[in-house]
C-alpha cells in the first residue's frame, strides 16, 4: 500500500499519546533494569572476585545459568513461572525483574574482569596505610574499575533497551507494542516500524553520548 508522508504525519499526530507513553515505558523499564541490574551486578562481581569458595561457586552458577538463558525465556519465566509459584507480578514488574537479573549477570562478569585487572599492589598499598577492605573498595578499587567498565557497561545498557522490546510479548505497553497497535489500526507498517526504530536508535545514541561524556570527565591525565 502506498501512503503519503502527510498521511503518516497525520496518523502520527493522532497516535502521539500512546506512542509517547510507549517511549516512556521503554525508557523506564530499561532504566529500572539497568540501575537494579548494575547494583546487583556489582555485588555479583565482588562475590566472584573476593568471595569465599562456596559463595563464589554459588554466584558462578547463577551467572552462568542466567547468561546461558535467552532473555525471552527469562521474561516468560518471571511472568508465568513465578505466577504459578505464588509470586504474582504484573507484566511490567515481571519484565523489569527479568531484565534486571539478566543485566546483573552481565555486569557481574564485567565487574569481575575489571577488579581482577587491577594490580594487587593497589590493595597492598591501601592495606599498608591502614584502610579496611570496604574503604579500599570505595576509594581505590571502584574508581579504577568504573573507568575500565564504562565502555562495556554502555554496551550492556544499550542491550537492555533493545531487550526491553521483549516485554511487549507479556503485554507491557512499551514502544514496540504501542507502534504495533498503531500499525494494526492504520496498516502503515513501514513508516511506523521505521519510526520506532528511529526512536530506539535515538535512545541508544543518547546513552552512548552520555557514556562518552562520562569517559571524558573521568579521564586520568598521564
Amino acid at each position, binding site marked *: 500500500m502506498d501512503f503519503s508522508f502527510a498521511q503518516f504525519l497525520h496518523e502520527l499526530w493522532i497516535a502521539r499519546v500512546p506512542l509517547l507513553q510507549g517511549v516512556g515505558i521503554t525508557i523506564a523499564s530499561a532504566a529500572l533494569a539497568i540501575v537494579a541490574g548494575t547494583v546487583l551486578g556489582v555485588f555479583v562481581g565482588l562475590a566472584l572476585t573476593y568471595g569465599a569458595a562456596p559463595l563464589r561457586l554459588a554466584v558462578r552458577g547463577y551467572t552462568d545459568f542466567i547468561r546461558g538463558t535467552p532473555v525471552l525465556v527469562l521474561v516468560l519465566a518471571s511472568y508465568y513461572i513465578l505466577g504459578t509459584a505464588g509470586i504474582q507480578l504484573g507484566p511490567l514488574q515481571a519484565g523489569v525483574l527479568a531484565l534486571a537479573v539478566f543485566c546483573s549477570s552481565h555486569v557481574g562478569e564485567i565487574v569481575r574482569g575489571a577488579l581482577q585487572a587491577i*594490580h594487587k599492589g593497589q590493595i597492598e*598499598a*591501601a592495606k599498608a596505610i*591502614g*584502610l579496611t577492605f570496604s574503604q579500599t573498595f570505595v*576509594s581505590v578499587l571502584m574508581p*579504577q574499575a568504573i573507568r575500565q567498565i564504562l565502555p562495556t557497561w554502555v554496551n550492556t545498557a544499550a542491550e537492555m533497551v533493545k531487550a526491553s522490546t521483549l516485554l511487549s510479548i507479556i503485554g507491557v505497553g512499551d514502544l514496540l507494542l504501542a507502534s504495533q497497535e498503531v500499525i494494526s489500526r492504520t496498516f502503515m507498517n513501514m513508516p511506523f516500524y521505521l519510526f520506532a526504530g528511529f526512536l530506539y536508535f535515538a535512545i541508544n545514541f543518547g546513552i552512548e553520548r552520555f557514556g562518552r561524556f562520562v569517559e571524558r570527565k573521568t579521564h*586520568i591525565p*598521564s
Partner: protein
Amino acid sequence: MTTNPILEIRNLHKRYGDVEVLKGVDCSMQRGDVVCVIGSSGSGKTTMLRCINMLEEFSDGSIRIDGEDIGYELRDGRRQRKSEKEVARQRALTGMAFQQFNLFPHMSAAENVMLGLVKVKKMTRDQARAVAEKWLDRVGLLSRRDHYPGQLSGGQQQRVAIARAIAMSPRLMLFDEVTSALDPELVNEVLVVIQDLAREGMTMLLVTHEMRFAFEVSTRVIFMNQGRIGEEGDPKEMFLRPKSERLAEFLKNSSFH
C-alpha cells in the same frame, strides 16, 4: 642503652604449603634504628618485611610493635588471627614503601598522600591537604602535588609513595627494595630522601640490594640466608670483615666493592 624495643620478632615461621620460607627469625629494633636487610633472592627478607604489616600471614612465632602483638593473639590457649578491623589498625602502626611504588593512579600526588589521613586518621580534607603538602615539600615534590602518577617519573612516584607512608606518622617505616624498579639515574634521588629520614631519627627497616647505601645509612645490617638470619651486626664489621663464609660469598658477588 636498651629500652623497650619498637619491633620484636620472635621465632617467626612462614610456610607456603610444604615450603618453609622463614625458619625461625628473631630480631629486634630500638627507636631510631636504621636496619638494612640484605641477602640473595629467596632468602626470605621481603617475606619477613611483609609479615610485619600482615601483608603476609605467618605460620608461627610472634611480632610485636611497641609491645603489641601483631596479627594474632592467644585466645583460650589457641593462636587466632585478630579481626580484620584490628589488623587494619595495626597496619597503620607501620608505613611501607614498595618496589613498584603502588601509587593510586586515579589520584593526584596530594590525594594519594591525603587518602589515609582522611580515611584512617579522620582528618578534615583541609588538615590532610596541609600535612600532604608538608611531606610532598620534604621529598621535593610540592610543585607536582596536582600531577597524577602517570605524569611523574619513577623516582618521583617513589618519593610520593614514601611521602604517603611517612605522612601517616608510622612508628616504623618498612622499605621493600624501593630502588629496584628504578632506572639507574633515578635511584639516587630516592636514596637521598631515605638518608634524610634516617638523619632525622626515623626508625626504618629496609630490604635493599644497594650495598653501598646499606653500608652508609644503616646502624645495623641483617644478612638473611635460607630463611634464617645468617649474620647481623655493625655495617662496617659485616661488610669489611664478614664472619661467615656465606656472607663473604654474597658480598663478593654483589655490587659492593
